[in-house]
């Protein structure tokens, strides 16, 4: 080795603080300052985060406020449509702490899934859809919490566009005027998994199901932390602050062993249009680059993510791969479903396992949950509904945590 060569120690030292977490030297601007400037000029209304919030650090060390309650739930069409236990688990968690929340009927989806799939829309329409939803939330006084990773990422992108392009703001305001709505942008864009993250220790306090024997992998959702990357939560204690802390932090708080795998950065293969009408790509990518890699490298009991498309893709794609004798077979859940299950949420009334395709029974067996007993209970509910003796399952049926014996 010559004297001019960099030593391994020097490289390690340099890499240990490769990302400077100082807002003063962040490579991107703080969008919130721009929002307040626009508000001061009378161009927009900035909805403030409610008083009851927790402060967290984002990628470049900025502080982000995550509201705890008084939240307006911007639901996800993919979750509500195809994985309803995802949505019911989010609400169930709120209900366990008597937190004030609103489940609105004046919300549309962001329509971002369609935009990323087909581009049969334009910037003004997409911004108007977002702004109409935010105005609807503002009218109630409740603060938006966004369930879908794509809605969250898409809205962050649109927020940038609205801030940077006056013409777009003017056009959106013109349309909102017709509805009698103001142009509102919330002070923070908040993803539900950020709420789960800041609540994780509270969940652990109420945890009744031991999960220490579970090994899980995490798939971080692309649209959560790749689009407008500086807005995602990072924590030096989780992956050394080199990856987003959401999901992993929650699982660790619940005592789950989070195992690493080499393709963690890869997307799930959703593809937006692909998952609906060009699934050869989706099936191949999600199983060959994600599920099979996890299986070969760490053989987890479960994989956990925090977005609609990722749960759908990773779960549903495994059937065809199994038919081709690939090394697959990992149940897929969202962080909210795992947290709810840990606190005793009913596996079918709340977590709604029956909407998932990859076999989840071995996972529940390993937790010592007699799923057959609760499935029979749920079948009894269904019989009553079929017979017209019950209109449906309500929170009255679902709120009470199950005590597994």
């Amino acid at each position, binding site marked *: 080795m010559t004297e001019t060569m960099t030593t391994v120690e020097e490289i390690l030292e340099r890499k240990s603080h490769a990302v400077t977490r100082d807002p003063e030297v962040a490579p991107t601007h703080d969008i919130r300052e721009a929002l307040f400037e626009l508000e001061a000029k009378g161009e927009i209304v900035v909805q403030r985060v409610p008083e009851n919030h927790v402060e967290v650090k984002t990628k470049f060390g900025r502080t982000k406020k995550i509201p705890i309650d008084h939240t307006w739930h911007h639901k996800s069409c993919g979750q509500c449509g195809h994985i309803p236990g995802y949505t019911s688990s989010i609400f169930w968690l709120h209900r366990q702490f008597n937190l004030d929340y609103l489940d609105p009927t004046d919300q549309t989806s962001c329509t971002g899934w369609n935009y990323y799939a087909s581009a049969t829309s*334009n910037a003004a329409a997409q911004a108007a859809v977002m702004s109409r939803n935010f105005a609807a939330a503002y009218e109630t006084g409740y603060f938006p919490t966004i369930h879908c990773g794509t809605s969250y990422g898409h809205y962050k992108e649109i927020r940038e566009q609205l801030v940077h392009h006056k013409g777009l703001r003017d056009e959106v305001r013109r349309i909102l005027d017709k509805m009698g709505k103001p142009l509102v942008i919330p002070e923070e864009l908040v993803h539900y998994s950020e709420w789960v993250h800041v609540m994780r220790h509270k969940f652990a306090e109420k945890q009744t199901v031991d999960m220490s024997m579970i090994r899980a992998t995490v798939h971080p959702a692309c649209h959560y932390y790749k689009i407008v990357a500086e807005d995602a939560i990072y924590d030096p204690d989780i992956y050394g602050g080199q990856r987003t802390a959401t999901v992993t932090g929650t699982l660790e708080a619940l005592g789950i062993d989070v195992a690493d795998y080499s393709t963690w950065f890869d*997307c799930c293969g959703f593809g937006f249009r692909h998952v609906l009408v060009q699934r050869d790509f989706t099936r191949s990518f999600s199983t060959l680059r994600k599920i099979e890699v996890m299986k070969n490298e760490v053989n987890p009991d479960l994989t956990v993510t925090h977005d609609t498309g990722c749960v759908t893709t990773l779960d549903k794609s495994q059937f065809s791969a199994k038919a081709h004798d690939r090394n697959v077979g990992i149940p897929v859940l969202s962080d909210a479903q795992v947290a709810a299950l840990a606190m005793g949420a009913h596996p079918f009334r709340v977590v709604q396992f029956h909407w998932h395709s990859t076999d989840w029974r071995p996972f529940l067996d390993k937790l010592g949950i007699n799923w057959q007993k609760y499935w029979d209970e749920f079948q009894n*509910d269904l019989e009553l509904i079929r017979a017209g003796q019950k209109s449906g*399952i309500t929170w009255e049926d679902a709120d009470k945590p199950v005590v597994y014996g």
Partner: protein
Amino acid sequence: MPTTLENWNPGKAQDRHPEVSYEEKEKLFLEVKNDPRYEDFLYGCYECGICVSTCPSARFYDYSPRVIAQAMAREDVERVYDIISEDIWNCAQCFSCLRCPRGNNPGGLVTLLREVAVKNGLQETKDVLQGYSRVIYKVMLKGNQVSPDMLQPDFFPDWGPWVGEFSKNMPVWRKAIPVDTLRGVTDAAWKTNRKTLLELYTIWFETGNMEIIKEIDEGLHDLLADVMQEELEEG
């Protein structure tokens, strides 16, 4: 077609679409370049290939986000036409390519290219979106991309036989969800009030979104426009 030494064309792709005039190709290129978002999406390209290494589509298709950034930066009108008529539909829109050290957004460029392809009704784009019309119908009319009643075995045969259970049990399973806005709803993801849907229709008309649909599928446009106009007139 996989790229081989014989068909590899690193320069101008001028022979691939002789049926389209250069002027037409240039018009499309300029539409992309003049989009207000363009300057936020492209700053230059080091040709480092980080975007390709992270791109899921590059692993399965003859597709490269680097080529897209390069072609746009070089203003290679012929190659951009090549891209707009075919490559753009391979992108998974995951935005992993935002890892670009130059700050480029190749996925964003694809979005702009797609918008121009749709707006100009390119035949290749119509072909790609042919099987997708029912989804556009759903999202524009209901404000939801997907709904429970789309879970049919003939639509998702590769998701396994359990999909049959979804469709068979759908009415009762949907009633067995404790969330008030979901319970019993099968034709949309959740209950949306009428006023909200009318506001959504207003957005589609006011932003020119309906004209975009007309360009890509006139039959679908007419159907949507009829239903929405009627609803808006009823108020």
